[in-house]
């Protein structure tokens, strides 16, 4: 494992199939590539498209006021709320899906991925009491089918051995459900949330455009878009991107911390 042991940068390894490179090499490589890309971007004649320095400038202006912070907070709170509701609903319907009676409903929810939200906005408006509830219910309705799809496939892919061990230990069906699906798959629930968090994060900017009264990063984006203020739009885009990555990382950490056996 020469590639792992050697901490120094060796460019010849970068082009070897299946070669593992050290963490520091990786960081140097990523930094260089990002830098190269940014320089290229700045130097290229973009016309209307702002370069990195202008975007950084825009970000500075955003950070100078409370505007960004307040709107981000509004978006985050809404996303987290939607996630909590979605997780609860997903788990409920997924656990129930092992009972034949609830199979059709679970399958229907999974298929709801193919429903486009835009056409349902009016119905949701009629069904909800205010803008906040509208946004939340749209988000949850958008997220749950994706969570369910992932989680049901985890359940379906349960190795027969897990059930057989339960059988040989004399577990009842309910005990088996508890052990294999509820306890045994808890770590995977985290992984699913992590992988599908992007969907929630992507949808948030969309639903916030529907109801601007409560603000949010989506509202900000739409405002700046209207004035063709591209440096600010792209700065916001960068913030959304960075926060998404942050969440991805944090959820990963949390999973390893809560379910230490997933590190093995």
């Amino acid at each position, binding site marked *: 494992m020469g590639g792992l042991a050697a901490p120094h940068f060796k460019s010849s390894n970068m082009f070897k199939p299946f070669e593992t490179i050290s963490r520091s090499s990786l960081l140097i490589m990523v930094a260089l590539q990002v830098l190269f890309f940014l320089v290229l971007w700045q130097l290229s004649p973009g016309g209307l498209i702002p370069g990195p320095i202008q975007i950084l400038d825009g970000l500075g202006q955003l950070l100078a006021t409370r505007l960004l912070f307040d709107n981000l907070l509004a978006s985050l709170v809404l996303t987290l709320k939607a996630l909590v509701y979605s997780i609860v609903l997903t788990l409920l319907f997924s656990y129930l899906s092992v009972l034949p009676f609830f199979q059709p409903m679970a399958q229907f929810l999974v298929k709801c991925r193919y429903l486009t939200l835009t056409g349902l906005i009016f119905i949701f408006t009629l069904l909800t009491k205010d803008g906040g509830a509208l946004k939340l219910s749209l988000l949850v309705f958008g997220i749950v089918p994706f969570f369910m799809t992932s989680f049901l496939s985890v359940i379906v892919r349960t190795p027969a051995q*897990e059930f057989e*061990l339960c*059988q*040989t230990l*004399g*577990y009842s069906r309910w005990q088996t459900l508890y052990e294999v699906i509820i306890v*045994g798959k*808890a770590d995977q629930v985290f992984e699913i949330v992590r992988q599908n968090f992007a969907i929630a994060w992507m949808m948030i900017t969309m639903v916030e455009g529907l109801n601007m009264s409560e603000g949010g990063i989506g509202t900000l984006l739409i405002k700046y878009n209207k004035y063709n203020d591209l440096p600010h739009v792209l700065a916001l885009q960068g913030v959304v991107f960075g926060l998404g990555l942050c969440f991805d990382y944090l959820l990963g950490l949390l999973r390893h911390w809560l379910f230490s*056996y997933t590190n093995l």
Partner: protein
Amino acid sequence: MTAYTKNDVLLQAKDISLYYDDKCILRNIDFTVRDIVRPGLQQGQVVSLIGRSGIGKTQLFRVLSGLQKPSGGTITVRERKPVESGNGSIEVWRERPVRAGDMGVIFQNYYQFGWRTVRQSLLLAARKNPALAGKEEDAIREYAGRFDITDVLQRYPAQLSGGQQQRVSIIQQLLKGSNFLLLDEPFSGLDICVLDKVTELLLQVSLSDELKTLIIVSHDIATTVEISDTVFILGKESGKEGSTIIREIDLIERGLAWRHDLRQDKVFVDTLAEIKGCL
């Protein structure tokens, strides 16, 4: 010759057959396992099913364990059952079809729940055993000490060696308390030192209770014959589809059971040759 008698039937397979679609895998499988009684000893039973690879051992194993329903025939086990009588509860013997959960099953890959530590897995099994109620932790500590896994009780299965996993699986099924232990290829993939330990351990288990019955499915003839009292050979009869028991060898009659110094014995060598000839 050691004094012994074969008494009650503990397990009976009657005319077992197994088909997949129209393909016959097993047919007309009949055998019984009787309680071997030796004066002054708690002598359990060690029965083995030997056959070459692909003959249907695993399928028979699954049928015996109750995990696979046979296409025809029945497996009955004998168990003590408390019944209410006029003056309190008494225990009577009764026979009934095998169910998944009756047998302690030790799978070939020693599968354990990846999300449970060894201690948790053992505790879950011990809680299934009414005889251990309230003493689960003590029982685990005792078995762990005896089988040398005390150090790994807090670990997850992925952190154990193959030998440790096997011992955990065996202890788990012992804690569960069923009299039957079914082992699928318990000797495969073990090096010589571990192999001796495992055979020693299985013999120890077979001597722990009069009714303990080990059923070993294996293709390692020598090791299996060394620790068994009876061998059933699974094979095919010419012109017939599906495997069945083609021979039963009573190793006690041949003076080969319950001994340690078999490898050089002429009868042992001849018996191995005989079994090989059947495969």
